[in-house]
Every structure is written in C-alpha cells, then in structure tokens.
C-alpha cells in the first residue's frame, strides 16, 4: 500500500468510528440510530478498513474488484447522506421547535469517511494494470466520472449542510430543478447564442483564416511579414472589439458573429501557416521528383501534414467562440441570448438560473470540443500522438 492509501484508510477508519459511536448525527443530539442506512454505511466502511488491513496482499491482487466495491460503498454513503439532508429538512419544517437541528458533527465525519473511501476507490482503479483494451477505455472514462460525481457531491453536501444562501451558491439539485423547469427559455437562448452567433461566426472565422493562410503561404514575403503580426494579435485582448462590433452591426446576432469571426481568425491563420511548413524538406523534394504540381503537393503532402495544427486551432477556437459570443452580449442584445440572460438574472439575484445557463454553456462547449476531437482522431489517425 502506498502512503496515501494508508492515510486514506486511517482517515476512513477514524471518521467511521467517530460517527458510529461518538458524535451525534444532528445538532439536536440524535445519534446515528435514527438513520439505519447511515449505520449500514458506517459498518461497511469499517468492514472495508478491516479487510484492507487484514488481507492487504489479496486486496492488492484484485484491485479492480476492490476499487469497484469501495467506489460503490462511497457513492452509497454519499447518496444516503444527501437523502438524510432532505429528510432532516422535512422533519425540522414539520416540528417547529427543532427548527435549528441542522447536521451535526457525526454527519460531517460520515461525509469525510465517504469522501476518503471515494478517493481510495479511485486510487485502486487508477492502479489497475490491464492489457485489455476495452477495460482500459472503460477505466479511462469511469475514473474521471467518479471524480466529477464527487465534486458535485461535495458541492451539494456543503451548500445544503451548511445552508449556504441560495444567492451565494445554489446547490446542484436546485440548479437541476431550475434547469428542468425552464428548458424552453434555455433552448431559445441556446438557439440565439450558440446556433446562430457561435456556429456561423466560428465557421466563417475559421474558413477565412484558413483561406487567407493558403494565400499567404504562396509568398514568403507575406509569410515573414504577417506571421509575427498574427502572433502578436493572437496575444491581444481581442474581445475588446465587442462594443465596436455591437455599434457597427446592431444588437442582433450579427454583431456577436462578427466578434467570433475576429477572435477565431488569427489563431486559425497562424496555426495553418505554421502547419503548411511542417512537411520535411525531404518529403517536399520527393514530391518534386514526382513532378507534382502545386495543387498535388498541397493536397497530398502539405495539407495532411498541416492537419494537426489546423485541428489545434479548431479546438482553441471552439472555446474562444463561445466566450466571444457571450461576452459580446453584455454590450447589448435583443432580449434573448445566453449572455443577456446571465447578466439580467444576476441583476435579479436568480443565481440558480445563471448556473443553469452556465451548465448549458459548459455542456455545449464540451460537446463541441469533443466532436472536434473525434473528427481529429478520424482525420489524423496516422499521427504519432494517437498510436
């Protein structure tokens, strides 16, 4: 066992014992006996700790099984803790005299135990050595998901357990509820900002950057002159042109698309120009011995060699485009759009709606990025980084 695993086991052991025997579950002083499920969880925790200490060698041999079991117990614990919060809120609302009975020390030690188990489980899963391709793939997906789930769980436990004001940070469940209740608004905003401004601006900006790069590539003079300037411009806060674009193109999505075009143009230009000179001299000479025309050597040698660079620019641009469109909406919009909704709902202190909008943006951004990565894998399967 590594040092961190030993530490986590010890932590789970201590916190499990504390919440099972010492600390009360809520501030009213009720013990853990009031929640059988939590008792089960604490018992399971102690069992895992005991097995971990007693049968160390065996456990290390079956890390996959151990990891799955530990993760399952930890998620079960988290789920019961969250459910207990809901029940506690209901009962304290019913019985007015115990209104201040929030979660007590025992609740928090149980939470720490669940979290320590979660990390321990991930630690086991990450240590699994397998030659099975499918298993590797599954693990590569599952481990981050468990980690992300734990981020959400901690968020939920902290915001609801400490009753953080809704205005400050709403809990994930509140955000999810708001999300489900206002899908119509979210969809309209998504259509305005993403489907119109981002997609149109992104494709125009990337395409024009690519075409200009092809033109520049023909002249070494322009290449030497434009590349430093393009590099410089890529480092500038281009987002500042947003108010100017809003003035020129009006409040509707056209101005946002214009901002996106400008933001995406230069990364594409610089990357494509760099990519087009990525081919070896040897390879270029070989094309020459084949008497390949400019178009032929472009299509068969230099564009394929430039693809990794082009996809790099496409990926950078996918996040830039979303940011550009949303920020441009702060400078004036019709009464629809993700940036508009965010700025107005902040003003009305409807923070859960803002988070729902952010969730849409995050999912849209991740899916966009993921799609480009998928296409990249299909197009540049020959590249060393994918083999």
């Amino acid at each position, binding site marked *: 066992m590594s040092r961190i695993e030993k530490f986590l086991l010890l932590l789970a052991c201590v916190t499990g014992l504390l919440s099972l025997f010492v600390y009360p579950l809520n501030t009213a002083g009720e013990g853990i006996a009031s929640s059988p499920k939590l008792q089960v969880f604490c018992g399971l925790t102690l069992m895992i700790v005991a097995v971990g200490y007693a049968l160390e060698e065996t456990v290390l041999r079956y890390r996959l099984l151990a990891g799955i079991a530990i993760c399952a117990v930890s998620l079960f614990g988290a789920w019961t803790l969250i459910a207990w919060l809901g029940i506690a809120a209901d009962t304290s609302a019913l019985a007015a005299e115990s209104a201040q009975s929030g979660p007590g020390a025992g609740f928090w030690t149980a939470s720490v135990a669940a979290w320590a188990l979660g990390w321990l489980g991930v630690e086991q899963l990450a240590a699994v050595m397998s030659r099975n391709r499918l298993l590797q793939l599954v693990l590569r997906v599952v481990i981050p998901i468990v980690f992300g789930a734990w981020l959400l769980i901690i968020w939920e436990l902290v915001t609801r357990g400490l009753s953080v004001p809704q205005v400050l940070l709403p809990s994930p469940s509140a955000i999810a509820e708001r999300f489900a209740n206002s899908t119509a608004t979210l969809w309209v905003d998504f259509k305005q900002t993403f489907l119109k401004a981002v997609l149109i601006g992104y494709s125009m900006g990337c395409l024009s950057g690519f075409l200009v790069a092809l033109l520049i590539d023909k002249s070494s003079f322009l290449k030497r002159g434009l590349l430093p300037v393009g590099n410089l411009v890529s480092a500038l806060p281009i987002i*500042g042109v947003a108010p100017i674009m809003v003035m020129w193109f009006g409040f509707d999505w056209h101005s946002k698309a214009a901002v996106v075009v400008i933001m995406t143009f230069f990364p594409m230009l610089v990357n494509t120009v760099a990519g087009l000179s990525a081919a070896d001299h040897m390879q270029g000479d070989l094309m020459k011995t084949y008497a390949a025309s400019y178009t032929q050597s472009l299509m068969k040698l230099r564009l394929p060699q430039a693809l990794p660079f082009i996809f790099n620019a496409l990926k950078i641009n996918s996040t830039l485009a979303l940011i550009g469109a949303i920020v441009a909406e702060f400078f004036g919009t019709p009464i629809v759009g993700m940036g508009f909704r965010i700025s107005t709902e902040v003003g009305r202190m409807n923070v859960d709606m803002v988070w729902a909008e952010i969730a849409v943006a995050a999912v849209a951004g991740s899916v966009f990025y993921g799609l480009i990565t998928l296409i990249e894998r299909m197009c540049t399967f020959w590249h060393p980084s994918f083999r």
Partner: protein
Amino acid sequence: MLTVSAICHSAGFQVTDNGGRVWPVTVVVLAIIAVWYLSAVLLNSPFQKDSYKRQKQTDVSLVTLARDTMSQERPVLPAPHQVAQEIYKTTVQKKITSKRSLIFHSWITLSTALLGFVMGTVLGIVLAVSIIHNRALDKSLMPWIIASQTIPILAIAPMIIVVLNAIGIQGMLPKALISTYLSFFPVAVGMVKGLRSPEVSHIDLMRTYNASSWQTLWKLRLPASMPYLFTSMKIAIAIAMVGAIVGELPTGAVAGLGARLLAGSYYGQTVQIWSALIMASVLAASLVGLVSLANRLVLKRMGSLP
C-alpha cells in the same frame, strides 16, 4: 515604425533571423494602417455627407470630405491619428491620479491581471506537481482540467463579481480570480508536460543516487521544465489580461480599461473605446515581451541558450 519592431522584438519574435523580418513586418503594418485610413474614410463618409446636406453645402471636394471624415467627434471608425491624439491627451496631459487618465485605468487593469497571473501560475504549478506524483489525480483530475476550459468562465465573470461583492469581498480580488481561472490552465498543462520531459535514463540516474521524489523534483524535473513553464506563462499572462478586462465590465464602469470600453460603448465615444483597446494591446504585448525576456535570461543562466 521603430516602436512596432520594438514591440515585435519584445514579444519574442526574432526580428533579424530568417532573412530579415523587419522589412516585411514594416510593409504589413503600413498596409494595415493604410487600410485603416481608407476604411475610416469609407465608413465615416455617409454621416459626413448627411451633415453636408443638412448644412446645405454642395460641391464639396473629395479632399475636404476625406479630411472631415477624420475629424468627427464620434466617428464610426476613428482614424489612427485621432486615436493616437486621444491616447496622448489622456496619458501625458492628464495627471495620473485623475479619473480621466488612461494610465490610472491601465494600472488598475494591469495590477489585477498581474495578481491573477501570479495566483494562476502558482495554482497551475501546484496542480502539475501533484498530478505527476499521484496516479489517481493524474487519471481523474486531468480530464476535468481540460473540461474546465470549455466552460466559458468569462460568461460567469459578472456573477462571480456580484456574488463576491454581496459577501463583502470587493476590489481587486474577484477580478483577479477570473484571471486566475483562465491562466492556471496553460500553466498546469504545460508543466505536466514539462515535469515529465526529463529522459527516463536521467530519472533512473536519480534513483541510483537514492534521491527522494522531492529531490528529483527540485534538482531534475523543475530545471527540465523551465522552457515549458515560460511558454505557458506567455499564454497565461495574455489571457490574464483578458480576464481582468472582462472582470471590470460588470462592476458598473468604475475604473479600469474594461470600464473605459463599457463607458465608451454607453456614450458612443468610439475614440475612447479604440484608445482603451490600443492601450490594452500595448500592455498585453509588453507583458508577453517581459515574460519572454525573463525566459531568455533564465535559460541563459541555466546554460541552455548560447
């Protein structure tokens, strides 16, 4: 033109190699300025013609028209010299403490960006060090670090500012946090690559010395990661600047370059917008230049540069 090549040079672009870049860059920049003037005339002339018509002025020569389009109060696109005059007026002729001084606003943005950049760099390095030392963190945290950047943080900048304001945290820190969020990413990703860049044989050598993982980190991995660190820091400082500017938008146009942008867009002061924009660009370029200067100095000291 000297300034342009100086900026390009300071921004880390070799001016002299590759058969001379000064001449092509000069031509390109001159061409950009020429296009700027031309579009200023074209974009501003409809308004100018309209005002001629209202003043019952007929047969205005083309030269007069061109000259008048470049001296409007609120042009659609101000000419470069108008912007230059405005920058001169608001930097040299105003006292630094004045609210109308561009230097005052630039300093506010600059200090925010620098604070955010420092915090982001430290956070990025800490994350990278823990990622290379813990397998579970490597597998679980790395995908989320990448995913974190698909969230348009700038979009929630207003909320972070308003919410932190509500609990009494004001001033520089909330804005700097946005810069931090943006700038930790390139540093974390670059440093993970950099800390893993030493060859296997070198790491094996450290093992034969019975070096602890801390010693390996300090004496082998960190020195080896310096080029990666500086490359990432160049990106990080540029986006820290963007974060600071956008962070200033929702504070209600109080101070800072972002506030100048917002105020300019409210009152149609295009010259003010453009001068803030140019100022921000100059600042960003010189910050990137400073980082690459530090890069050269450090690498020279370490003996990896001739």
